[in-house]
């Protein structure tokens, strides 16, 4: 990964020096190895803080909504999964494609520090990535963990390592897709009884603190003014006053991004209460696949989405049970 980081830094430096781009969006060193933060770099000096490692899980594409409207070209490093979001944003005319230089970068799966800490390393001082093994130094002892066990949820079910868009690429090693089927968890829920499902979601959604992190990080949530912030919508709300509001918020949000959600998994990554929000979006993806043919949002930057098209022979809502026509 170190070689990839060096190559990225080098390329960013070239682009900035030559004046080809005015800024580069990537990641900046944090306080630890495990907390790099998204950042834009406008000069070669600023690149000293540039970093790319196993904890750069954030999807940077949404920052382009603001950045691509700035003076000059913006270069951005996109992981394969981020490239889907990028296409979707282009499709929805949220970002200005001509102003962006996409650099496709290698990704070997990103790590979840909470999972590492849960393995007993709760005072992490250092992390070292050695292929499939992650060496962790902590104040309470050192050790190694298997990468597969500490991947971010979204990376466990990685939908593929192919960039859907790129102007150039920095890929030095072969990349592998996720080992788990992404619909497995959805199917598990579908197999439950109605009561069990209700209890499951009740317990999960009850944790919601309505911080809006899922909404604000979501590349598909790009409305200028969200209905939940608009008193005129009749459903604006801030905190949880009743269990209904948590349901309302998450149902409406999931529905609103259905057909547009690329399954980038950012919602679940950022949730402070670790609610498996991706399972809401994946249900829509699964149902769309089953009812209207396989569709992956963000594969292209053109064309219609399943919810903005139809066929005369579509299933009747009353006949659809669990995403299948009965």
């Amino acid at each position, binding site marked *: 990964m170190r070689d990839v980081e060096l190559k990225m830094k080098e390329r960013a430096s070239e682009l900035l020096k030559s004046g080809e781009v005015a800024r580069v969006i990537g990641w900046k060193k*944090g306080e630890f190895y495990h907390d790099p933060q998204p950042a834009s770099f406008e000069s070669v000096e600023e690149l000293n803080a540039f970093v790319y490692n196993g904890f750069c899980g954030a999807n940077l594409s949404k920052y382009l909504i603001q950045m691509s409207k700035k003076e000059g070209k913006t270069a951005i490093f996109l992981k394969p999964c981020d490239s889907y979001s990028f296409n979707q944003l282009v499709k929805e005319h949220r970002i200005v494609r001509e102003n962006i230089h996409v650099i496709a970068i290698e990704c070997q799966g990103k790590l979840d520090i909470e999972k590492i*800490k849960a393995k007993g390393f709760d005072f992490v001082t250092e992390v070292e990535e050695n292929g499939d093994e992650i060496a962790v130094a902590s104040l309470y002892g050192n050790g190694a963990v298997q990468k597969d066990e500490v991947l971010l949820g979204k990376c466990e079910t990685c939908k593929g390592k192919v960039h859907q868009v790129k102007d150039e690429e920095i890929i030095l090693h072969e990349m592998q897709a996720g080992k788990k089927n992404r619909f497995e968890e959805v199917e598990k829920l579908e197999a439950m009884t109605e009561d069990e499902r209700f209890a499951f979601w009740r317990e999960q959604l009850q944790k919601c603190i*309505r911080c*809006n992190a899922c909404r604000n990080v979501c590349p598909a949530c790009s409305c200028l003014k969200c209905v939940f912030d608009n008193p005129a919508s009749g459903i604006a709300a801030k905190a949880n006053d009743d269990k209904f509001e948590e349901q309302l918020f998450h149902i409406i949000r999931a529905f609103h991004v259905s057909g547009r959600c690329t399954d980038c998994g950012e919602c679940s990554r950022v949730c402070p209460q670790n609610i498996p929000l991706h399972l809401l979006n994946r249900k829509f993806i699964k149902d769309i696949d089953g009812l209207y043919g396989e569709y992956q949002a963000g594969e292209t930057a053109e064309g219609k989405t399943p919810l903005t098209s139809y066929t005369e022979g579509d299933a009747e809502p009353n006949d659809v049970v669990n995403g299948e026509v009965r």
Partner: protein
Amino acid sequence: MFKIAKERLNELYSKIAETFGLFIPIKKGGEVNYHVWGEGKEVSLETLKTVKSPKNAFFPQSENLMKFKTEGKNLEIIDVRWDKTEKPFVMFGVKACDYKAIEVLDKVFLADPVDTYYQSRREATTIVTLACSRPEESCFCNAFGIDATAPQGDVTTWLDGENLYWQANTQKGEALTAAVKELLTEGGEEKVEAQKASTKAIMEKLPFASLDLSRFKPENLNELFEDPAWESMSEACLGCGTCTFVCPTCQCFDIRDFKTNEGVIRYRCWDSCMYSDFTLMAHGNSRTTQMQRFRQRFMHKLVYYPSQNDGLYSCVGCGRCVNKCPQKLNIVKVIKTLGGKNND
């Protein structure tokens, strides 16, 4: 000092719950938060940081203030506050940082004019704190002069592999001790001292132990406000409310009306200065950019609040924002950038 064997803690909880509502860190849906204790609940005292802080008990995320009923032209106001005559409650397992945070909140809500909603809950609560023994890298309470090994509170407790050690500090604490006395035995001083010493040794190694806060002074208010670094620090901010809602000292709220079939409920709920509509008025907004909102939050914690409260910072170094910010922005980065020369 008293002690009780770890295996008997359930008896202790059950005994407390006879006379008090017992709020304690409980694992539910995979996450640990303060919930009301009940038989069979998965108590997790060892959890260092509950996701939501204990402030939720005194300043609930959402709280009904009053109801309005209309009959013809006549309006009636009904006070629907939490009933003081209900069981008093015990907050069990509050960490030193979170306890300090309650003091920070007190200075806001109990200042004249007193917020009686907060006050009634606060007065009905006995706080049992728990000393930390296994801090993690995001902790920096010691930067604010907090001693995590000996928190204050009505009762202070320490937990090791064998026992929970118990020491009452106040009248309320004595009363609670009396209520559970039959379960406690005397002793444990040496064990507690040993734990304090070993934890202190760990605390010294905390990476943020010596943050330099010297520049955060009221007289530097304008200079800090104008600092160009706010732009780059806030660049990645999503404008979500995660930091605010997990923060034990954030106290901003909104007051809203909700129409029911019976009338109107006026409630207050947590609000975040990070939200774009926080200061939105019919004819304008005083903070239109995320940079301004980001700056507001940290200036409030490190400059405005201390200026109003004799230098007391409204950050307690719990590190929740360090762990939970989706894009890894946090107050430590702000302190290191603006706090003073001795930060690297």
